């Protein structure tokens, strides 16, 4: 009984799909953002898994990619939460099915 690449990839795929389900189904905008963060984290796990198990000339490339994804995820979270606070100030709600100002 040994742990191989399939085990880690399975965990990454399941976390990604849970994040996708959360992002598509939650009513609260902050809940949607949590789903997006879960998806990004699952992708990081998959990249590190391939970096560990694949034969490559430069295995550090996977780690570098993950560092950039963490940077972009942090920037995205900051801007998205500022947007949520800004919307709350104007509409008193952060439910995504109440954002219908543009509907005629």
């Amino acid at each position: 009984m040994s742990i191989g690449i399939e085990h880690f990839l399975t965990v990454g795929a399941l976390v990604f799909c849970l994040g996708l389900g959360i992002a598509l189904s939650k009513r609260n905008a902050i809940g949607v953002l949590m789903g997006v963060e879960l998806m990004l984290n699952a992708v990081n796990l998959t990249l590190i898994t391939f970096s560990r198990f694949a034969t490559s000339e430069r295995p550090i490339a996977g780690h570098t990619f993950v560092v950039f994804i963490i940077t972009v995820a942090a920037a995205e979270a900051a801007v998205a939460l500022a947007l949520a606070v800004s919307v709350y100030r104007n509409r008193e709600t952060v439910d995504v099915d109440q954002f219908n100002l543009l509907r005629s």
Partner: protein
Amino acid sequence: MDGGGIVFAFYVLAAVTLISAAGVLVSRDLLHAVLFLILTFVGVAGLFVLLSADFIAMAQVIIYVGAIAVLILFAVLLTPRAGRNNGETKFALPGILLAVCLAAVFLFVIHDVAWTTNDEAPVLGADQLGEALLTTWVLPFEIASVLLTAALVGAIMLARTPQEEAEDALA
């Protein structure tokens, strides 16, 4: 990777990660969902350690558990009258269905492909990561710093009140 301790650690960490990720989906209270999200991040950090990516695991704990989770908690607490309900929209069923179908495709592909792997882990430390970031990928590294500055300025501009803007204009 077939030591007894590694197998045990993998299954414990995978269970923590998956159960708390499912907890984010099913919990009714938004604050409980944030706490489950923090537990998921910790579990993924443990899996990074298991994959001998110690620097990435540390960055995960500092940035995700330390910064992003606190940011989400702040956003929850700054929207007090919006309700703590973590319910679903009326389009939840197609979304969940899509996620389940995607999971089935992923699992089929992962278990059908004959992966060729090397068993000994490549030695990857923080020193090699720093060298790669400042030689091969120095241009993306600089672009990432510009992106962080832009996100910082944008977040401040979005989040401040009209009252504060008027005070700044007078000063």
